[in-house]
């Protein structure tokens, strides 16, 4: 039976996607004082894939994302992001690389003294290369994507938690990055708002074809991502029809005691014999 083609529009980005892996961790370890957080972990994020990272609190999930972006340096090992070894790069070199990698922080990390417009436009304004009219157009486009165009003149303190996360997504995607890192984007949100955020992540994945690492505590978020696609015409996510398959594969990575104990797709996860993982997903 042929796989149904999903009604997804062309990606926003016009650059040619690279064929190699987007992010590669090679035997990476990091400790904070005496506490070993990640101990020799290795994994690969292939181009076009979304990898959902799970683990208990303090397992090193957020640390892993920050290392992928060069915000933290590992004690040992190598991390290749978009083909560059971020462990060997200076901060100035990393600034250029980070243009192609967006990140949504756990608590949004919006600049509270700036308006939504200034937050979303921050990178473009700092670069100083884009005309003001073009910045305004792109800010509105990004905010329209997250359906918050009406908040453009508001300050982060005036927004709800869910709205702040959506603005953070808009800020992350304004340069149309090849890769997105989501750090618990639904953490602390109510189920309805969480679903809205997950829908946005699916929309970004399917419309822009970005690869992404998604740190989350909520297994249902990942299952929704695995079983839904974004219908651009209806402007909403829809369940994948029986026998259908989403274009962007979803993988699962589970951390425990500083090690990767599972790295595979949803079928492998469902059939795992590991007691801890079975308990985790039950």
């Amino acid at each position, binding site marked *: 039976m042929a796989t149904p083609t999903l009604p997804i529009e062309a990606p926003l980005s016009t650059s040619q996607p690279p064929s190699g892996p987007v992010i590669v961790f090679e035997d990476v370890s990091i400790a904070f004082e005496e506490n070993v957080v990640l101990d020799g972990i290795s994994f690969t994020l292939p181009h076009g894939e979304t990898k959902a990272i799970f683990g208990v609190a303090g397992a090193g999930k957020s640390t892993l994302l920050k290392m992928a972006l060069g*915000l933290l340096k590992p004690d040992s090992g190598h991390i290749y992001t978009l083909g560059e070894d971020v462990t060997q790069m200076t901060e100035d070199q990393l*600034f250029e690389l*980070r243009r192609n990698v967006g*990140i949504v*922080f756990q*608590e949004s990390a919006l*600049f509270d003294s700036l308006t939504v417009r200034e937050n979303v436009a921050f990178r473009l304004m*700092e670069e100083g290369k884009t005309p003001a009219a073009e910045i305004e157009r792109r800010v509105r486009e990004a905010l329209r994507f997250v359906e918050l165009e009406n908040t453009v003149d508001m300050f982060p303190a005036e927004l709800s938690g869910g709205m702040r996360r959506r603005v953070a997504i808009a*800020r992350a995607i304004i340069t149309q990055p090849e890769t997105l890192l989501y750090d618990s984007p639904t953490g602390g949100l109510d189920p309805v708002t969480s679903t809205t955020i997950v829908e946005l992540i699916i929309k970004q994945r399917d419309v822009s074809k970005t690869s992404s690492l998604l740190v989350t505590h909520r297994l249902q978020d990942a299952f929704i991502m695995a079983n839904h696609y974004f219908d651009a015409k209806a402007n909403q996510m829809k369940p994948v029809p029986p026998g259908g398959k989403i274009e962007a594969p979803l993988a699962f990575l589970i951390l425990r005691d500083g090690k990767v104990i599972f790295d595979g797709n949803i079928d492998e996860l469902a059939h795992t014999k590991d007691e801890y993982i079975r308990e985790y997903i039950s």
Partner: protein
Amino acid sequence: MAAGDFLSSIELISPTEFAKKKIQSLQDYSILAAESVVNLFRTPRYVADMIQQMDLIGFGSLPIVLASVFFTGAALALNSATTLSRFGATTVIGQLVSIGIVRELGPVLAGLVVAGRNSSGMASELGSMIVTEQIDAMRALGTDPLKKLVTPRVVATVVMMFFLTILGDLMGLLGGGLVANFLLGMNAHEYWSNAWQTLVFSDVFMGLMKPLVFGFIVATVGCYYGLSTKGGTQGVGRSTTEAVVAAMILIIVVDVFVTRFLMVVLGS
């Protein structure tokens, strides 16, 4: 928490570890201080942020600097009069207040007041940005926090400390003058001509060099403690307190060395 639990929760640290941490802190502070200066010669330069900080630091601190130096000048005149009257030398109050305020009290008081107000402000602002991941977000968005946040604050504090000290000195002299005129019955012209004529180049030079050093200390210490914040909102409070204490102590200690250095250089 019971006393026993509290005592058992105290973590003892070895002297070696303690020394290592202090040396590491000194190294980190030195790097931040050096970078804040080097960034002046790198692009981008955040001129708008510098002007905004000048407004916050300079105009914001103006009333308390003026008030503190004014009343110190007045108190200095009163205290001097008590001693000088024993020798029948109350006419030199103008000289004493002038030298004391311009060479020492003006810059130091302005430094301490600005440290109390702005080192704490910088530490708490940057500390809050650390704990809410705004600094990480800034780096992730391709902006160097040292260029964007630290250098403008250092430049603004150094520049505004210079002008705040000049205005503070004037207010100190005015405070002394009012006391001399209205309480001690001195002729105003006599006081002001004494105060003016006693000042030489080395006095004014010393009085205007110190605020530059103190401004640098206030800003770099405030920013260092802010950017070193760990441990959530409690950590922000700790950083704020430590920044004020460190900046004030540094100003008082460095003042001695700067005074001695300038005396040797200027031969006074």
